[in-house]
């Protein structure tokens, strides 16, 4: 028997492609926002803020197409799981895009304040971890790879540590009010990057649901869980 719902499946494939493209956009946007902060590049701050329109319009378009599939195509089984997971992943990516904007706007507002090289290095380090996390999550989606999903919570650990460490770094600036003012904004930025890591983990959870049909949180702030080792 041949394929009976080819057009529906073609549309699903097309949506997967759009989501993957959106993942690249969001990941690049985070990278550019942090780069603009570290290099004090005001023009790049603006470019990141303007660039979010593209992510937002992609988000709306994907959301509408998913809504149409749900309303018109009676998806079931793995098709249904793919559609609901894409609905979530789409929103996570849109939020990551917004976080890049938040970083760029904060960066734009502190151009006249004195900065700290150590703290900027920490921010850069966080970015260097969360961007591969987004890439890993999207690769897990593209390859339908559960093992890649399961790596994400572990990748997220240093991000959480760097974020907590940021408080101590900034507290050390207490003697210089202008630097402290700048440092407090860095806490906000670190918090944004920490959230990006959480979104990447959440995307991994959605891919896990897509692949296994069972939803479970990889990390749970109120009830920590033990994950199986890699390759399990």
């Amino acid at each position: 028997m041949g394929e009976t719902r080819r057009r529906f499946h073609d549309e699903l494939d097309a949506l997967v492609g759009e989501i993957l493209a959106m993942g690249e956009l969001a990941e690049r946007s985070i990278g550019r926002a942090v780069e603009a902060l570290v290099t004090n590049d005001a023009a790049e701050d603006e470019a990141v803020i303007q660039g979010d329109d593209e992510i937002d319009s992609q988000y709306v378009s994907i959301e509408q197409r998913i809504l149409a599939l749900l309303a018109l195509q009676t998806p079931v089984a793995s098709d249904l799981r793919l559609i609901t997971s894409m609905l979530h992943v789409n929103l996570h990516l849109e939020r990551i895009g917004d976080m890049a904007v938040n970083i760029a706007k904060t960066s734009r507002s502190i151009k006249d304040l004195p900065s700290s090289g150590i703290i900027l290095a920490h921010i850069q380090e966080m970015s260097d971890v969360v961007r591969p996390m987004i890439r890993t999550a999207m690769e897990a989606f593209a390859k339908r790879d559960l093992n890649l999903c399961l790596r994400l919570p572990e990748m997220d650990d240093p991000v959480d540590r760097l974020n907590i460490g940021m408080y101590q770094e900034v507290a050390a600036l207490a003697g210089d009010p202008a630097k402290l003012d700048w440092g407090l904004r860095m806490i906000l930025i670190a918090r944004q990057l920490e959230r990006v890591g959480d979104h990447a983990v959440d995307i991994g959870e959605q891919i896990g649901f897509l692949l296994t049909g069972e939803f479970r949180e990889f990390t749970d702030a109120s009830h920590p869980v033990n994950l199986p080792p890699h390759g399990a």
Partner: protein
Amino acid sequence: MRRVEVSGLSAWFGPKQVLRDVSMVAEPRAVTAIIGPSGCGKSTLIRCINRMHEEVRGARVQGKVLFDGRDVYAPDADPVEIRRRIGMVFQRANPFPTMSIFDNAVAGLRLAGRMPRDELHEQAERALRAAGLWDEVKDRLGEPGGKLSGGQQQRLCIARALAVEPEVLLLDEPASALDPASTLRIEELVQELKEQYTVVIVTHNMQQAARVSDWTLFMLYGEVVEFAPTQKVFTRPDDRRTEDYVTGRFG
């Protein structure tokens, strides 16, 4: 081009009025679905489009059906020619059971007049290909049509309708007697056919209307309740009765 425009159409069976002032348009290269509960006038509406309704004793029509801008009910309109240009497929697959697959496919062509054998074969192949049946029957064209499965028989009837080169295809619940796989096959076929034909499909399967159509007409008690793009009808219909019907709250 191949546009069907129904305007102020009312229809009766004897004293009983079954359509009331119906207006709708079926656009070329699109599928228009007609949905509604049993007895709402769906089938009567499409049977009025190609003048099949009047074949029933005591049936009567008032209003206009414009095809290509011309009223199919104009005094000089030829119903046979209209039915050739506006083909129809019915709920139950009705191939001639003992006639061969080939002869079934070209039955309409033979009725229309003589045609050289090789040309007839060409037309049969074209129609069977268009109906998505060719690969399954090309090596057994001489076998009786009745030997095919239900889904194949229905596609054979679609091929028979396509062989006479219509411009509009009216499908009256074409998949309601088929199993799920054959139903989906017919739905894919409908999507392919709309590239070349104006397609109108009557269905009491709402999900089917949602899957295959670009426009949806919802009827109730012989009247049009809502006529809109299918996505709108199934995501945010304007009329409360449409909402209740598509969500299964009545009907």
